[in-house]
């Protein structure tokens, strides 16, 4: 592990001096203090901590998988595994000529439906606005649901999608990864599906290992 990368817990002083505090770091005097458990990282004068635990915080343009939990006359409320509910406006589904008299929201989505959605806007003052219009978005009809910690999602995707591509190619599975830690995997071949699920669980379990890619590759190539 390099010199500027190390494990920290809240309150640990990462470094002192002229640096810029970023993700999960606060500045106290000239001390850079970590605010969560994770890996500290100093690059280009900026200090940040990559968290190892925590809940999902919505971010604009994130793909999430959520469950419809209720609806009002104008919108659905979607559980996106975060501290806030996702709001899906009815006009997003019915189009601009939506009328709360003519259209019944349960026609399109009812409680308990799973959807793949994208975060449109979130500024913490209001609940995050989501949309399901777009490629690969919308209601999810089939597949296997897997839940992992949100902090492990970047590891599952890998550098420029390398990890997930490798799994998809090896198993022929179609995997939708929500940034909120909910994953949908589907595959025509049941063996491929179980292998993909095993690989995802393995990444969640061993995400801190440096040779993770090789380990997953080996597992995918093994015949059982």
């Amino acid at each position: 592990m390099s010199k500027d990368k190390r494990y920290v817990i809240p309150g640990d002083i990462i470094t002192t001096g002229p640096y810029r505090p970023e993700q999960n770091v606060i500045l106290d005097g000239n001390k850079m203090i970590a605010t969560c458990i994770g890996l500290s990282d100093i690059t280009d004068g900026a200090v940040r901590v990559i968290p190892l635990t925590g809940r999902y915080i919505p971010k604009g343009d994130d793909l999430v998988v959520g469950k419809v939990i209720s609806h009002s006359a104008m919108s659905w409320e979607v559980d996106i595994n975060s501290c806030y509910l996702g709001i899906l406006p009815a006009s997003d589904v019915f189009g601009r000529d939506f009328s709360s008299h003519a259209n019944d929201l349960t026609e399109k989505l009812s409680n308990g439906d799973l959807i793949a959605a994208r975060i449109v806007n979130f500024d913490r003052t209001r609940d995050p606005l989501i949309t399901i219009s777009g490629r690969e978005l919308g209601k999810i009809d089939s597949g296997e649901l897997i839940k992992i910690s949100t902090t492990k999602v970047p590891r599952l995707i890998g550098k420029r999608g390398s990890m997930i591509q490798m799994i998809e190619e090896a198993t022929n599975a179609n995997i939708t990864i929500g940034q909120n830690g909910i994953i949908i995997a589907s595959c025509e071949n049941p063996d491929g599906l179980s292998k993909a699920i095993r690989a995802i669980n393995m990444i969640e379990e061993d995400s801190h290992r440096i040779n993770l890619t090789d380990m997953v590759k080996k597992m995918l190539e093994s015949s059982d």
Partner: protein
Amino acid sequence: MGGRDPNVVLLDENGKRSDGRTVNETRKVTIKAGVLKNANGSAYIEFGENKILAGIYGPRDVHPKHLSNPDTGILRCRYHMSPFSVGERKNPAPSRREVEISKVIKEALEPAVILDQFPRTVVDIFLEILQADGGTRCAALAAASVALADAGIPMRDMVSACAAGKVADTVILDVNNEEDQAGQADMPMGYMPNLKKITLLQLDGVLTPEEYKKCVEVGIDGCNQVYEIQKKALEEKYFSKGDQ
């Protein structure tokens, strides 16, 4: 809380206390992080004979809604003693004492947590005393802090806690139940070890100004010892698996 034995020797001529400790020694403390599957964060602490479970939920929606704050998240704390935690069955309804301890623990953690990143939400802390033997508020505070870190709640610093006190005219560290009952003073403290700030300070008893200063000093020393154990508990859960 058990009968009082008038003949108990709190400090013998060799400087040993009723349970065999020296004046500057804490009881044996063990902490384990992440013991509950369904909570967002959790910890279990054994502080001598005290056994306490801490569970964290959140940040999550506030119910009832009127408690929510549009500028910041809020902290809620429930300290509860199980009916079987003490010698005589304890009525499980929250007592005056439990309401007070819930409040002081909440206020001891508030300077540490950074909740303005989660407006309109609440972080719930549940502290369940499974077995009590004096100094539960300190032990519960130490466990709550580990559980908060385990839940990934942003914090300026960990909060560690330990009590100091006075028995037989001597300042001692980490008061147990016997010493609390028969002793002269008990002073629980919460402390942020890196920021060097005190977040909880209560005092039951009478101390001279000199004794008070000594007590604070001894208490901070105890908090630092507890902090090392808290750190170890988190390191064990997050950093111990395999290579890096």
